[in-house]
């Protein structure tokens, strides 16, 4: 600690560039977002301070509440379906089955394709009149199950989420790097003890990649909470606002030149996201401490 105190000027100098940039491009804009959220402002006339009116209006708006709920569903679906699915594929590919390099590329490929192109593709797949899903259902004699997938309140949200959940490539690559770094000797020892493949993955792979899983889940939750693109492109929040998300609500307020309320949405989004991520991380770290104590 004494050494640290002696070098504070040097340390400060090293931290300064990052601090300046962080302040310029994050802290100050964040402060401005909060400041504008307390104003009535159309971006053209002078701002007028209105206190918490924008927040009160926001939380009295059922569409916005629906948006929070849907963002939460998005976050949970990505964290607890997409990430485990990615972990499963990563564990399979770690065993290097035939063609595993090709499969790794195939799974990752959608992550380098534009989100717009993917959304357009899925709009066609889901189309009620000529979409591939309905065509397939008709072909196998299940015409009764055909739907207007993006136009029904019951199916629109799951349809948009599913198309996103299937693209596991990003998390798979991260988890694959983690699984591949586990020493082979662990598995060899387990094999000598008679453990089968499932036991090896359950007792060795999963505990070893747990911290990376938590990172992936945190990333997935943060993405789910700020999700916007696919919903905007595929349903624009419809039908009947059933796929509304906070980001889209913010976009609509901005399009209406209601920057005060748009920034109130932005502030809420940051607060809700931050709170959920802190809670999740605390939960995992508590479990880790409990597990350490047992051991």
């Amino acid at each position, binding site marked *: 600690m004494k050494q640290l105190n002696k070098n504070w000027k040097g340390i400060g100098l*090293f931290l300064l560039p990052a601090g*300046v940039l962080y302040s310029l491009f994050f802290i100050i804009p964040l402060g401005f977002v909060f400041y504008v959220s307390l104003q009535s402002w159309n971006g053209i006339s002078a701002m007028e301070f209105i206190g918490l009116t924008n927040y009160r209006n926001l939380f009295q708006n059922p569409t916005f509440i629906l948006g929070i709920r849907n963002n939460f569903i998005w976050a949970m679906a990505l964290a607890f379906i997409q990430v485990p699915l990615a972990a499963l594929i990563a564990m399979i590919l770690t065993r290097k089955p035939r063609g595993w390099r090709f499969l790794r590329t195939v799974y990752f490929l959608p992550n380098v394709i534009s989100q717009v192109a993917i959304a357009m593709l899925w709009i066609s797949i889901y189309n009620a009149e000529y979409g591939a899903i309905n065509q397939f259902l008709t072909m196998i004699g299940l015409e009764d199950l055909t739907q207007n997938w993006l136009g029904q309140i019951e199916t629109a949200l799951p349809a948009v989420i599913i198309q996103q959940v299937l693209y596991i490539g990003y998390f798979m690559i991260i988890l694959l790097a983690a699984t591949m770094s586990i020493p082979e000797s662990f598995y060899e020892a387990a094999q000598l003890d008679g453990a089968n493949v499932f036991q090896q993955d359950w007792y060795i792979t999963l505990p070893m990649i747990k911290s990376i899983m938590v990172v992936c889940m945190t990333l997935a939750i943060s993405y789910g909470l700020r999700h916007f693109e696919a919903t905007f492109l595929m349903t624009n929040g419809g039908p009947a606002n059933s796929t509304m998300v906070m980001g889209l609500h913010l976009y609509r307020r901005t399009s209406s030149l209601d920057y005060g309320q748009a920034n109130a949405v932005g502030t809420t989004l940051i607060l809700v996201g931050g709170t959920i991520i802190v809670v999740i991380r605390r939960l995992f770290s508590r479990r880790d401490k409990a597990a350490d104590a047992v051991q």
Partner: protein
Amino acid sequence: MRLNKTVAILLGVLLLAPALLIAGGGQQAAPEQREIVLNWPTIWVGQDAKATVVEQLVNEFNQANAGQIRINMQPSPDYDGYRDLINTSIAAGQVPDLFVFNVDPTQFQYYDGDLLMDFTDDLKGPWGNRFVDGAIQASTRNGRVKSVPFESALTPIWYNTALFERAGISQFPTTNAGFWEAAEKLKAAGIVPMSHMTGGTNAWTSMLWYSHIVANIGGPDVWSKPLSDPVFVQAAEILLRMYQDGNTTRDAVGADAGVSGGHYQAQNTAMFINGPWYIGNIRTNSPEAYANTRLAAFPGPGNYQGGQIGFLLSNLAAANTNDPARRAAVIKFMQWMTEPANVARLSLDSGALFTIRFDIPPGTEVDPLQQMFLEINSSATFIAEHFQANFPADVVAEFGQALGSMALGRSTPQQFIAQIRAAAGQ
């Protein structure tokens, strides 16, 4: 390890250098500019029917004013993206030198403050005489004209004569009973009567159908009435019927303008609504549907027959400036774009309608569908605006959501209107 102070300071300066360079970049003195360059982020590029002639006009203007004025077009081919670009630029106080905006209550907020160039006095002279009656008035707020009326629109009902004939209908119905009878005949012949949509930012096609119905029941001044007026619920009941019993396509709920227009172009649907700017698109992509298209008024159950939905579509605007030379350059370009001969070229090539009077040069072959637009415009018993022209963007967005809910049987026509009223704060 003890940190060498000199090395630490040097490293610190090195790390700070990029940030200092970025911060200082804007302070470099701009080279002296003799030529006035006006940047024009524009939507009239790419697939837009006006793109070719707009580019020609800009090139001709630049050649005629070489070394003095140069218009620098900045393509922005997505309509929503363009609107966002203009909104955010203006909010940041960086008004584009030249731009185009859709005429609606949200965009008219640009008139607040002194960000836009004021053309009020300029348009009082001979320049103002070029415009059709009411166009300048429609672009006036608080006595000031801060944008130049340019493109106008008429959105009649398009119908496919070949499909009507296949269903045994020889002419477009002129009564409401006849309209629904025709819909039944079309369905019996395996043809979907109408294109509809709840998607996009404004549920465009259905919003126009609704505007036709509302105008038919409520007359030309219907939008001056509050949404609590019964006319709006009555119109919603008819709109709902259009979504029921196979009167529209199965994918109408959630569909966007591409789907709605696509069904008409593919001759899956017999009726559709859009403006003249769509002529270029359908002529190129679906020549058969284009050749079979005729235009009509909606024969609703109301007392106001023969009306059309028409509105000011887009205005030209410019950033305000204290530089007289720059202001003169902007006005020179605006006058060039609104030159009747140039507007004639634009209109005849794209099919679009404009707020500027022009003569069609003798011997010029006018697109037959555009000719029909001109005829139906002059024969309309009245012209009313559409829903979108009377409500801010968030209310227009809510129209599609409320319509989706009603079409799916989740709400009644009364609840449909209540949802829109709530969004509009009425």
